[in-house]
């Protein structure tokens, strides 16, 4: 499902060149639950951004669902993000202007524009909220009226909207208390069991309990 071959990435920060990733090779199979762990600055966020087609590597090849993404242009990368990948962030990153339901509808609008009726869009969004185990009564709430756990459920529902095969989660439990975090991880596991490939970047050691595989990253290199 996801394959990285000799991927390197470096960037400049304050005049210093930082080698974020050094010849990383990685294969993640369809339906796997993978945790990527490592200290801050180990390159795990860069890795996630590259898998998520937000960033391009300096060298190496990347395949997402058999599509080689490293030489695609901006528009094609946007399409991959839309169709193949659902993002979940530490800060939830919901659009504050939109209700929970509208936040979930947003990726549908980006994908289908006007070809999807409002009714269909709402139905899909409600289904996704249900999959993320958020009570329907919160659908019309604004993000600031929801608790952290509820917001993260909305974010997961949003990631599910276009039914992507891959969920990329950047510290999904980082802003939640351990009990709520555990519930979110249980939800991710459930989604994984239903067929989603889940990649979680985290500090949280409890994630390891849910993951099929833990990849340790240190100084831009994978340590098994």
């Amino acid at each position: 499902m996801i394959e990285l071959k000799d991927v390197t990435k470096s960037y400049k920060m304050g005049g210093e060149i930082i080698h974020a990733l050094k010849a990383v090779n990685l294969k993640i199979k369809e339906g796997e639950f993978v945790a990527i762990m490592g200290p801050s600055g180990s390159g795990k966020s860069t890795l996630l951004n590259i898998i998520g087609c937000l960033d391009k590597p300096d060298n190496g090849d990347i395949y997402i669902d058999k599509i080689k993404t490293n030489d695609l242009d901006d528009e094609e990368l946007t399409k991959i993000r839309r169709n193949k990948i659902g993002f979940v962030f530490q800060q939830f990153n919901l659009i504050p202007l939109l209700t929970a339901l509208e936040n979930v509808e947003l990726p549908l609008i980006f994908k289908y524009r006007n070809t999807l009726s409002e009714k269909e869009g709402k139905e899909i969004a409600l289904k996704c909220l249900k999959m993320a185990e958020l009570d329907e009564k919160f659908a019309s709430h604004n993000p600031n009226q929801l608790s952290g756990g509820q917001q993260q459920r909305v974010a997961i529902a949003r990631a599910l909207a276009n039914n992507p095969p891959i969920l990329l989660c950047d510290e999904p439990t980082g802003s939640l208390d351990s009990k709520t975090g555990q519930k979110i991880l249980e939800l991710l596991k459930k989604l994984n069991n239903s067929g989603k490939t889940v990649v979680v970047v985290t500090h949280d050691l409890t994630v390891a309990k849910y993951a099929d595989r833990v990849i340790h990253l240190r100084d831009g290199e994978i340590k098994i």
Partner: protein
Amino acid sequence: MYLKMAKRNLNRHILRSILALLGIIIGVMAISSLGILGGGLKQGIVGNFEGVANFVVVFPNAEEGYLHFTKKDVDKLKKLNCVVIPVSSKTDVVYIKGKNKKAYTTIYGIKKEDIKYLNLDAKNKLTDTTVYVDSFFADVHDVDTGDMVVLKNISFRVENIYNSSFFVISQNSIILSEKTYKRFYGDNYSMIVLYVKNKEDINKIKNETEKIMNKKEKTVIVLSMDKILQSINDVMDKVSLFLMGIGGISLLVAGIGIGNVMLMSTIERTKEIGVMKSIGASKRDIITLFLYEALILGVVGSVIGAILSLGVGYLVVHYLLSSSITMESLIYVFLGILFGVGTSIIASLYPAYKAANLDPINALKNE
């Protein structure tokens, strides 16, 4: 959804949006009410001249020593397909009876039956014992219909007050019948007015007049109003354009205001834009979102501005120029709206472009 988001985003900083809106309103108002003012000005001025558009006026060429026309000259022009109106004039002193006042004025002698062609707004019939008085003269010397004026020791009743048409009859003037004029000042014509029924024939009549009168040397100068009217029209159009240009400056300022608001919005929403990009928004989506906001500001501001400018324009045109709003003025309102919406969109192009091209990783890191 874009529209919904755009609306809510404008609501998020309502005061800022209102200020930007105000800029557009004032800009559109300035551009269209100045346009209406220009249009009204033009209509007012051109209207004054419209009454003499049918005239070709023939003057003796004083440079060559010709000072007036004779009966023979008038007869020569009679074969033209137009009404030939010989006009005599002289400056003289007129006494106003009962007020012990004297006034220097231009005295015209015109055939009684010709007066109706001159568009003087004079209804009553001139007789050999009455005079017509120009409204300007009447105002200055406090003369009314029925008053008596004395010319060469003979009293005349003021039969009517007319509005002079500038080009032919000057403002400070009185009109006598040709017969009375001849009795005082003799037989000479200072100009011949040709009334051409059909404006399209004016050039033809002009050329024929030149042919008849200027055979060996240039004895006459032939003028027609249509050229002058046209140049006045041109000048007034330029004045309108200039006025609108001034309005345009305020719209430019409004545009800078909108650009500024949008740019601030871009910076504030950096993270939001990053999120939208990561969940599948294309550059086009982001640009659309920003342009919707600009469009809302532009359309709402322009429409309010247009309505207000119609009000202001009406007041100005009605009370200052005492003419009315024409269809042409509505074009200025339409132009105002067009420029208002256009300015908002142009002003937000750069912020929208900037937002669309944000690097999603940096945008996501932004707090």
